[in-house]
């Protein structure tokens, strides 16, 4: 009975999943670009640049995601007109930028200092040295920890329902409330869907990591 219901509602669950994935892709992309800039500023920037970046990072890591979502949808929209989805991308994307900046910062710091030094000694300026020498190495090292961020943001997309983004978890909630039960079965299906996306994403990321792996640097055996 419930299986029939779930089956008949499957298109809506899948649609919810596609909303979640779209949100995930947007927020991770925003977080990636901004997180990289932040990390470069935090590692190589002058202190006048470093301090505001650190403040940004602390604020966006410290405030609970739900509060951020509400703030963006109901506060920031005073200045910029945008819908629920855009607000969710901004709120969660900026938060992800704060987290990702720490991943990249770690990666930058783990590139041996000699690399930067050798680049500077050749006559490269700081920007060239970061772009051509340090960044390509740091990005490779970030892929591993980045899988964690991918997994946790995937699940964080479910929070966007508070500002009216109807994603997978909200669709599931509809089924549960319409049948006034079946929490476990419905959520098991949802968990499976998240799990599949998570595995698929991590599989792709680990493949990328192996593709880009350099001789002499440890490969992760377990993908």
């Amino acid at each position, binding site marked *: 009975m419930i299986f029939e219901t779930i089956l008949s509602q499957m298109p*809506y669950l899948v649609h919810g999943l596609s909303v979640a994935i779209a949100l995930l892709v947007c927020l991770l992309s925003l977080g990636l670009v901004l997180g990289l800039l932040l990390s470069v500023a935090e590692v190589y920037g002058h202190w006048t640049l470093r301090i505001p970046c650190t403040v940004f990072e602390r604020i966006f890591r410290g405030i609970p995601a739900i509060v951020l979502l509400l703030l963006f949808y*109901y506060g920031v929209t005073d200045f910029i007109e945008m819908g629920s989805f855009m607000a969710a991308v901004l709120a969660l994307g900026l938060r992800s930028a704060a987290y990702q900046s720490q991943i990249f910062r770690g990666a930058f710091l783990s590139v041996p200092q000699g690399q930067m030094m050798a680049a500077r000694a050749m006559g490269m300026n700081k920007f060239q040295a970061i772009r051509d020498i340090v960044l390509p190495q740091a990005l490779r090292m970030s892929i591993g920890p980045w899988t964690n961020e991918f997994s946790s943001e995937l699940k964080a997309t479910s929070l966007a329902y508070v*500002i*009216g983004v109807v994603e997978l978890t909200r669709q599931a909630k509809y089924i549960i409330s319409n049948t006034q039960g079946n929490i476990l079965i419905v959520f098991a299906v949802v968990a499976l869907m998240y799990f599949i996306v998570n595995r698929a994403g991590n599989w792709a990321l680990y493949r990328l990591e192996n593709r880009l792996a350099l001789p002499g640097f440890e490969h992760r055996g377990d993908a």
Partner: protein
Amino acid sequence: ETLTAGVEAAFPPWAYVESGEYKGIAIDAMRAIAEDQGMDVEFKDLPWPSLIPALVKGRIDLLVTGLNVTPERADALDFTIPWWENDDEILVPKDSDKNLITAMCCGATVGAQGGATQFKWLEDNLASNDDVDVTLRGYEDYVTAIEDMLAGRLDAVVTSTDTAEDFIAKGRPVKIAGTIQQNQPQALAVEKGDPKELLGKINAGIMNIYKSGQWAEIVHKYAPQSSIRDIPTSMPDYVDTYQGDIPGYSK
């Protein structure tokens, strides 16, 4: 003119989503009211925490959801005339031999939705009363509370009448062990002060669909057993929009 109505769409029989469509008493009634008043309406599903800021920021024009009228909420919202009245029901498992009295005393554990009026009532009247030995437990939603009762960890769950009836209608193995008379009015709501001057139109619309019999039809479509109460139902005097002249409604 298109109205945007905010609903918490996980709240049958009032408002829910099935196969991507908004359904429920409040949904259909609101559509009828809008038609009656020559307006269009669209719905936006927002959970409770979002409803007030959404109203204030103009993301929605009114709340159309199974909204209990309470003094605290009346401070934050302006209510339309109440179109419904609820009592509270004590739900127990179908095979339970508990009654109104035994389900609510003597070491019983009782559940309710943490933010609901039922929870507050139980807290004020039972849990804080030293003579009654009852443990009260709050849940994020009623479905979990019912599941928990069916798992044997609760003796009873207290819900509003229409929710209780919906559980039974959906075939959950629960029954009503007793009713607590509350006469709790429900209404639609707009932003405090009604800056968009909607109250008059909505109130008029409510009265029109009530008088035309459309209301009874809609209610019975979603809750066949429900008896229709006169609209407006009881109008508590702590609600200031119910004092003096009520726009769109003459006594």
